[in-house]
């Protein structure tokens, strides 16, 4: 299925998002490179989460949301009428802000997504592999039957990552995955992200600039104009954005003058 030679997995073209009459995000042009970590940063209300949710059509569930422009996944616009959003989400997984395991056993949490997607292989092996990749296996291997909610917050978030990995996605979207966690748990997730980038393409929304600087290869800086419409101010390799930003606004933001 990875039959394209283009290094870009996801590409947006003139992406605009509206909530009813409200123009939330304006003219976003982004290229997400394969097996890299791309961080979306910016002040609150700049639309970075909205853009992230456009990548796997999670905005479909907001009745007033409307999308203009194109989001290309391997060159195919995922908003084309012949595209099944369910399949999009299976290829482009997501990890949410607050850990949200299902109220099921740890095993079932990981296995469920694979089951509904028609997995025929060895489930036990898949669960173990996914938990290992999420760096959770050693902590839970003796209590796979325990409820997902019996874990600590950081473990829950890694369980959610394992759950996402089990359906073998290509891209993993992470929406402020560490904002509900303590600093130590956050650090473990960050390490995990770097490991995962060897096999997966990761897009992460974060409000934490140090995190973006530490883990990401590319950074997209979003901000809002006077009409409260979000737009992409600057996009480039992370070191450039943090050391030699082209834009004055980016510089002000990363040096903590606003935001």
């Amino acid at each position, binding site marked *: 299925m990875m039959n394209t030679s283009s290094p870009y997995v996801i590409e947006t073209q003139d992406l605009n998002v509206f909530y009813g009459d409200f123009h939330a995000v304006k003219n976003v042009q982004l290229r997400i490179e394969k097996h890299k970590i791309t961080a979306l940063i910016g002040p609150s209300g700049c639309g970075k989460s909205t853009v992230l949710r456009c990548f796997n059509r*999670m905005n479909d569930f907001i009745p007033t949301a409307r999308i203009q422009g194109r989001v290309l996944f391997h060159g195919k616009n995922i908003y084309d009428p012949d595209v099944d959003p369910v399949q999009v*989400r299976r290829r482009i997984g*997501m990890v*949410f802000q607050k850990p*949200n395991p299902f109220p099921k056993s740890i095993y079932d949490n990981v296995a469920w997504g694979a089951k509904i*997607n028609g997995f025929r292989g060895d489930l036990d092996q898949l669960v173990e592999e996914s938990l290992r990749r999420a760096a959770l296996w050693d902590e839970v291997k003796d209590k796979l039957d325990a409820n997902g909610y019996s874990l600590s917050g950081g473990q829950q978030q890694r369980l959610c990552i394992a759950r996402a990995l089990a359906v073998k996605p290509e891209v993993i979207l992470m929406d402020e995955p560490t904002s509900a966690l303590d600093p130590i748990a956050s650090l473990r997730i960050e390490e995990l992200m770097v490991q995962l980038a060897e096999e997966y393409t990761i897009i992460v929304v974060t409000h934490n600039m140090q995190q973006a600087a530490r883990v990401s290869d590319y950074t997209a800086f979003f901000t809002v104009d006077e009409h409260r419409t979000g737009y992409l101010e600057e996009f480039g390799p992370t070191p450039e954005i943090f050391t030699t930003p082209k834009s004055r606004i980016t510089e002000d933001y990363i040096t903590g003058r606003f935001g």
Partner: protein
Amino acid sequence: MTRERSAPEIHESLRKRPRWGETVIHGLLLVFAGLSIVTTLGIVLVLFSQALHFFARPEVSLARFLTESQWQPQIGHFGILVLINATLLTSLIAMVVALPTGLAIAIYLSEYASHRTRSILKPILEVLAGIPTVVYGYFALTFMTPLLQRLLGRDVVEVFNVASAGMVIGILILPLITSMAEDALSAVPYALREAAYGLGATRLETALKVVTPAAMSGLIAAFVVAISRAIGETMIVAIAAGAGPRNFKSWREALHHLALFNPFKGAETMTGHIVRISGGDISYESIDYDSLFAIGLTLFLITLLLNILSRRIVRRYREVY
């Protein structure tokens, strides 16, 4: 300018004084709240004492009460099982009607319906819930029974029959199940649905395999409350289910062709019997009067048990999200 007050004066002003008004009000409100306990005690006391009266009669025994196959106190038959059987039959039919329908409506409302649709449908359910039960009784007798007779034949379906009463009880408890089930489903955090969608689940897979299991304790509680309501329902069965207990000479006869469980024949339930007997002019000294309280006690204990059970379920299996 006020005069500056001395320390002793200030100390004096802070001294605690009795506030009789406050105390009286506090006491009165406590009495009001305590009235609920008095009510419960009253119910228990009345039911037990009168039922004791009943069992103290020389011709009555607990064994006969629990084993006989007919209920005719005037001629010395006290088999409560025929009444309980009718109650269970109507309630079972009601649940068969209401449980799948109610759950399906609840899932539709909470997982599929748009905000607008919900805002139209929920008041309709509230209207259904607000209609007095006597109206449902009328509906059972003048609509459901003729309908069943037309579908299955007059020789199969009697004018008073358990099926039509049971089905209409099902309609009666439908709004109850629906709204309780919908509450339980809506209480499942949106994050769980997002997680499922994020894994590539369809709406149905999310609804049936994530949301419904997560809401299970609330759903079971809704069912138990609905069963308890169906068992206690009175007017529908009084009007449509039958004008006399379905008595049998022996249990052998009762089980012949499963006559005991035939839903298309009349049978009087516990509540229906109480209403019919107490509706006439009943003498306080008669065995009929005493027997009503024995039935009432049985009914009370069954519903109490179910209510306690439902709250246990909710508390025990309260979900952690």
